[in-house]
């Protein structure tokens, strides 16, 4: 297998390190598919996924969450950048450079759960076949008896009745199907699970069940999660750290509690403020309602991509692209934000209502 440089490039605790990840899609038109532009779906994304943690990727639709996770697992090949993966003390490997056979091995350890529990299970296969499929493909099944035993164990793990293994997915509700999808993801005893909006399509009562199940499994099996979601409250409950994405970039990353109570990027502040709170007492709180729409990654504004909607924007924001830098604070070097004024602005988190902005709206 290919080695990717020394250990220096990876943080000590990291199991996956994403370095300068870029994914562009050509915009083509006409009969001859002439390229007329480029969608910068992911633009220079860097982060580390530490062993045993849950890192959440949040942001509005189209900001590049799915593309990022697909580029990590190489379901889509990134345009450039590296995805370093390391098991234990072995040397890190760059997934982006791997051939098919090598990837097949690596993907045993990095598994994925999809958003839509209805389209992610083949309706023509029984639970036994669905959950057993990865084992069969990787020739880890052994006899048919051993396979049944293993599948039964996995079903028990996700709290489904093993006697249902001969049923087809149509016999199950959305929440149960998501459990089946989790069982399939866990069948190869992976290290990392990428959950792309895995609870977004579920009703609240069922969503809560799955959120708790994911946590229990993490404790039990020592899993690492990359948890992609757009619901901030769900992310707050589930994640240890959060990365906020906007228009293909990470604009803020930090420990969950710190990021929610002390956001350092105006977009994070607005997202927190906009999240509806199931408490009628906060009905009349001052909200930050962002004007306009999410930036179009096919046609990004110059400078800070958020500036057309940012109420703190100044001239500099329209010219210079802000870097993702440490914002320090007592929480140490783990909190970073990409805003020119990250260290100056007084932004409101979840502790209280939004205070009056101390700058005039641009």
């Amino acid at each position, binding site marked *: 297998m290919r080695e990717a440089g020394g250990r220096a490039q990876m943080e000590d605790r990291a199991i996956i390190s994403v370095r300068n990840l870029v994914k562009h899609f050509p915009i083509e038109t006409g009969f001859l598919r002439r390229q007329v532009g480029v969608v910068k779906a992911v633009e220079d994304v860097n982060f580390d996924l530490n062993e045993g943690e849950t890192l959440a990727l949040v942001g*509005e639709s189209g900001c590049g969450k799915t593309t990022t996770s697909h580029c990590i697992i190489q379901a889509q090949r990134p345009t450039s950048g590296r995805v370093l993966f390391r098991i234990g003390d072995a040397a890190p490997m760059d997934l982006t450079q791997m051939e098919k056979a090598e990837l097949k091995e690596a993907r045993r350890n990095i598994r994925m759960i999809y958003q839509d529990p209805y389209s992610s299970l083949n309706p023509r296969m029984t639970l036994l076949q669905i959950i057993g499929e990865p084992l069969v493909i990787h020739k880890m099944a052994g006899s048919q008896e051993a396979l049944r035993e293993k599948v039964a164990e996995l079903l028990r793990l996700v709290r489904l009745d093993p006697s249902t293994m001969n049923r087809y997915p149509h016999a199950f509700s959305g929440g149960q199907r998501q459990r089946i999808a989790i069982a399939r993801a866990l069948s190869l005893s992976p290290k990392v699970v990428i959950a792309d909006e895995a609870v977004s399509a579920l009703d*609240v009562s*069922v969503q809560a069940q799955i959120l708790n199940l994911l946590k229990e499994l993490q404790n039990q099996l020592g899993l690492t999660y990359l948890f992609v979601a*757009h619901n901030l409250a769900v992310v707050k*409950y589930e994640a240890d750290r959060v990365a906020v994405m906007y228009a293909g970039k990470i604009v803020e990353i930090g420990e969950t509690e710190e990021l929610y109570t002390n956001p350092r990027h105006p977009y994070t502040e607005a997202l927190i*403020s906009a999240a509806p*709170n199931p408490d009628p007492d*906060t009905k009349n709180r001052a*909200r930050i309602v962002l*004007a306009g729409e999410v930036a179009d990654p096919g046609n990004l504004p110059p400078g800070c991509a958020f500036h057309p909607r940012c109420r703190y924007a100044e001239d500099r924001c329209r010219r210079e692209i802000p870097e993702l830098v440490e914002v320090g604070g007592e929480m140490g070097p783990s909190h970073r934000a990409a805003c020119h004024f990250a260290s100056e602005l007084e932004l409101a988190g979840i502790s209280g209502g939004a205070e009056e902005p101390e700058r005039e709206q641009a």
Partner: protein
Amino acid sequence: MTAAQTGEREATAPPGGDAAADPLLSVRNLQTHFFSREGVVKAVDGVSFDIKPGEILGIAGESGCGKSVTSQSILRILPRNGKIVGGEILFDNGESSVDLAAEEADGRVLRDIRGKEIAMIFQEPMTSFSPVHTIGDQIIETIRIHQDVSKEEAHEQAVEMLRRVGMPNPARNIEEYTFNLSGGMRQRAMVALSLSCRPKLLIADEPTTAVDVTIQAQMLELLRDIQADLGMAIIMITHDLGVIAELTDRVMIMYLGKEVEHGTVEDVFHRPQHPYTRGLLASIPKMEPGRVEIEPIEGVVPSPYAMPTGCKFHTRCPDYIAGVCEKQDPPLTAVGPGHEVSCYLYGGREELE
């Protein structure tokens, strides 16, 4: 407490103690069923609520509980295999009270009411608009169907409405086609279209479910402003209890076609009584500092073809009373002024024998 302590609510009694205004819409024991090859689905099975002029009522519940079917029943726009099999939908059209459930679905009365007196906005804004006409054409046409005004007047009204919903350039936007607009603008245009005849009641069915949280915030702000401005009543249908808490005055919680609890948002969110409402509120992760555990409701929503007997929630209820709950539907019981619950914990057991 003025309301009856126990027993079923009288069909005509106003909800709670406040009887200041007559209800604009009064739904009484509505039952809407679907007949399909797989069987009968009792999508709505005995739902009653009132809405007064200018009030914002929320209808909340998990998917499949019958929220949309309730609203489709009111406007009589049910799919062909759906049928209102019982109950009344009394609408006060200014002069008298008409029972929408008893009218012809495409008769004169409903055609007059739809769009003019009661308007609706949907989850997917594109479904409200035709792609081959400009926004202006469609708003003007709607105005002229229901009001006797000239084309110029209608045009003026349309521009005014687009301005009110915050379209950036109403005079130009009116000439545009919906596919040229961004998602948020489409939502606004849809609101403008539905409000163009100044309806007394606006039904919004999950208008923010498919949109991003920042667009959702815009939409909620718009609805709040426009309600303050025009004073119509709103029925807000959503599965998102956060949206209910942010927008509505009163809320009705549904489960499997039944109303389980209703009351003011404060009562229902701060003093939830029904085990389902309590479970639902406990399942939602909160946006509060510190760690707040969530507690899911056990089990799964039963299939609509295999509805439980008695209290529909008894298969999942932590407070289930064996020998009681699975026998019969619990009646609605008042637990406070204007706060009613359908659960045997609060009464109704005497009548079982």
